[in-house]
Structures are given as C-alpha cells and as structure tokens.
C-alpha cells in the first residue's frame, strides 16, 4: 500500500519535472509584461509580435522548406539504396551499413564541422543548398534502416517471380516490391522530416548568409536573453506536437484494426 503511494508520488514528481518548464513558457506567453518576474495580466501581444517578427517567420519558412526537400530526397535515395543493399553480397552489405551508421553514431558537432570543412574547401557558398545537402546526409541512414527490414521480411524471390512472368525490372519494382515496402518508406520519411525540423547543430555549421532555421533563430535570440516571442513560439510548437501525436495515435489505431 505504502509502496503504491511512493510509486504514484515518484511518477507525479517526474511528470512535474518534465512539464513544469513547458508550463512556465506557456503561462508567460500570455503575460502582459516583458519579464517573467510578475504576472501583469492576460495578453495576445506576444503572438502578434511573433507573427510580425520577419526573422522568425523567414526561419519558419526555411525550416519547412528544408525539411520537405531533404526528407523527399533522402526518402528517394534511401529507398533505392535499401533495394540495392538488399541484393548486395554479405561483406559489401556489412561495409555499406557500417558507413551508413557513421552519421547516426557520430556526434552531431563532428558531422557538422566535417561537412562545413568540405563545403568551404570546395569553395561552395554556405547557405540554403549546403543546409539541404547536410540534412539529406543525416536523414538517409534512417530511411535506409527503416526500409531495409521491409525487404528482409518480403517473401524471397518475389522480384524473380515477377521477372519470370514477363515484367520489366522497373514494372516489377513498382507493382510488386513497392507495395511490400511502403510502410517502411512512410516511417523513414516521417523520421527524416522530424529530424530535419528539429536539427540545430548540423544546420548551425552548414548554413550561412541569412539562411537560418527555427532552431538557429531560437538559439541566437536566446543567447541575448529572454524574449516573450519565444514563449509564444513554444506554446504554438507544443500545441502542434500534441495535435500531431493525437493524429499519429489515431492513425496507428486504425491500422491495427
């Protein structure tokens, strides 16, 4: 009995620890004062200020643009890669998968500075392009790892059967393989998209000349102290995360049936 209460109190304290900071941000995003010192009444002023802040709005645009483009590219390249890797000889497969795991294991900062070094040494102007390339680079491994198991679960020689029955390789891929691996592709694309939206460190080193994503914008604003607009932004982002999770939850439930 006592045990049960200890567990409950412990769980409650953990959740308070996890959510208190977020709650503080949400509450103060409606505070009619620049400081977090005192509650001065309810306002939507900071939301207005947020939408008027062209730096944040531009960063939001770049965040979504980079996430969409890099997730699409990574999914495309990664899916075909998984297809190729599946049919490789074992030693080759092992080698490729080891290289594949480098960006996943390496600290982000090392991936970031190494890409930056490459771009600068090749005289490529840092900016939107380099940021997209960097995002594709850290996204591809996750796509490969979510698609490859689907090939392994596929009934063997499915491709051969289609080819024997007269399909061209491309037709066989489209009509036979693709439906089998589709769940893996969707998972991969979703992971790539969220990783890209959330990335800070690698973007920080591989972007330049006025192109920044939301993380970079938050970082540079936060370094100069507390800004109520960021509170408003946090509230909106937390809201969208919740909505997104609810949608995903519903979707998986439907799939279960």
């Amino acid at each position, binding site marked *: 009995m006592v045990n049960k209460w200890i567990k409950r109190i*412990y769980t409650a304290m*953990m*959740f308070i620890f*996890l959510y208190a*900071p*977020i709650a*503080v*941000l949400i509450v103060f995003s409606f505070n009619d004062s620049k400081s*977090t*010192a005192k509650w001065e009444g309810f306002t939507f002023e900071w939301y207005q200020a947020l939408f008027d802040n062209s730096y944040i709005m531009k960063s939001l645009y770049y965040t979504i643009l980079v996430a969409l483009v890099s997730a699409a590219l990574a999914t495309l*390249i990664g899916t*075909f*890669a998984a*297809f*190729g890797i599946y*049919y490789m000889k074992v030693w080759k497969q092992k080698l*490729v*998968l080891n*290289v594949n*795991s*480098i960006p*996943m*294991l*390496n*600290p*982000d*900062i*090392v*991936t970031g*500075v*190494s890409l*930056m*070094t*490459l771009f600068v*040494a090749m005289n490529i102007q840092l900016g939107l392009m380099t940021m997209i390339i960097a995002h594709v*680079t850290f996204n*591809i491994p*996750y796509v*490969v*790892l*979510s698609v490859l198991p689907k090939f392994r679960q596929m009934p063997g020689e499915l*491709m051969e059967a289609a080819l024997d029955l007269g399909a061209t390789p491309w037709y066989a891929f489209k009509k036979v393989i693709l439906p089998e691996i589709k769940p893996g592709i969707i*998972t991969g694309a979703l*992971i790539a998209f*969220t990783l890209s939206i959330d990335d*800070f*460190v690698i973007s920080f*080193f591989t972007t330049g000349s006025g192109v920044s994503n*939301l993380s970079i914008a*938050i*970082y540079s604003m*936060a*370094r100069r102290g*507390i800004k109520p607009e960021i*509170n408003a932004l*946090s509230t909106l*982002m*937390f809201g969208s*995360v919740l909505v997104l*999770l609810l949608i995903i939850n519903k979707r998986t439930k439907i799939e279960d049936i």
Partner: protein
Amino acid sequence: MLKKIASGPYLVWILLFILIPILMIAFFGMVRIDPETGNYFFTSDNFKRVFEGVYLSVWTRSIFIALKATFICLVLGYPMAMILSRMDVKYRTIAVMLFVVPMWMNFLLRTYAWMTILGKNGVLNKILTFFGLPQMTFLYSEGAVLLGMVYNFLPFMVLPIYTVLSKMDNGLIEAAEDLGANKFNSFRKVILPLSIPGIVSGISMVFMPAVSTFVISNLLYGGQYMLIGNLIEQQFLVVNDWHFGSAISIILMIIILLTMAIMNHLSGNDPEDGGANLW
C-alpha cells in the same frame, strides 16, 4: 541491372558527404599551413595540443559532467522505467506517450525554458522570495548545465530500459520468487541482469550527446564555460583555427565510436540496430 544501379546515387552520396568530409578533417588535423610559403606540412602539433594544459582540463570537465548527468539519469530513470513497465495497460500507453511528448519539443526551446526558470528574475527566485528566502543565482553555474543535460536526456535513459523491462518474461520473476528469493534478491539476480542491454544503450544515448554538447553549456552558463563542444565550435567559428578544431573533432569521434563499440559488445547487441531501436 536495376538491382545493381539502385544504390548508385546513395553510394556516391555517402562517399561524398560522409567519408570524404571525415577524411578531410582527419587530414586537416594532421597538417598546418606554413605561413611563409603557404604550403601544407605534416605535423603532430595539433593532436599534441589537444591534450595539453588548458585543453586537457576541458576534456576532463566535459567527460566528468557528462558522466554525472548519465549517472543522475540512470538513478532517476531506472525506477521510472520500472514503474512504467509495471503500469496497468490501460494507463501505460498514455503514460509512456506523456513521457515522450516533451522530447518532441524543440531541443533549444526546452533548454531556453530553464533560462526563464533559473534566471535572476526567474520563477524559482520568485518562489524563494515568496517564502521570504534570499534570492540565489541558479543560472550561469555548472549545476544549471547539469540540470539542462538531465532534463534534455532523461527520456533517452528511460525509454530503452522501459523497452527491455516491458518485454521481460514475468514468469522468470515469479519463478525466482517461488524459489524463495525476496523482492530485493529477485531484482538483483533476475531483473537487473536481464535489463543490462537497456541500461547500456541508455547510458550511451545520454553520455554521447552530453559530452559533445555546446548548446546547453552556452545557454545555461554563458560563453566562459568550456566543454569540448564549445571548444570545437570556437575553433571553427571564432578563433578560425580549423586545424586544431579538426584534431579535437577527430579525437572526440574516436572516443565516441570506441565507447559505442565497447558498449555494444558489453550488451551483446547487434550493432546493426544500434541507435535505431528507439524508434
């Protein structure tokens, strides 16, 4: 034919953007530019400097604070994972999800949130004043950095342990108890050893980002505090000594990859599903 060319673009991509960049910083770390002729020459100076005086203390500080954060996460996280894994199925899905939600918030925002709480005019000081206690400086201290690390990385510890514990065969625990083990002994001899793979991946998933961060230290301590991540950032973006920065990066990479290899070996994990089992 399609099978052969399908992975072509990918192979080119990983060669260009994964292997070559790493080889480049390895090269940059091994050379310097002769100021007179402008030519590269090979030297071990960069790598030697990585472990000298001031920089050595940056390493020890980084590793020490990352170890502390990992330890705190383990101590706080293991009981939490256990409670979650024993929860009624009805509440369990929701509880686990509630645990994951903060992780989906932008990492920068989560760290920024602590600035508003710990700051001079922050919420914590308001509470202290309310109870008539003197104000304190929480922000810009090592404790703040540690707190930021624990807050950000705690779910990385809880989730892998939770996964292992929830898959564990309950029959084993019952068997231990039937054979006369008390709660403590069945934990020590059955549950704990079986959960080691989860602990190991939790430890590496907390330690790795903690040891290489520069964001948490920069925001919660300010510019003066040097962790290895800050040192690399500074070498590349402020001091512009890319050779020294590259040497530090290579050493950091080697340390991390070695730790991961050892950790994987310890837990008997298949390296292929290494970092991916969180998903």
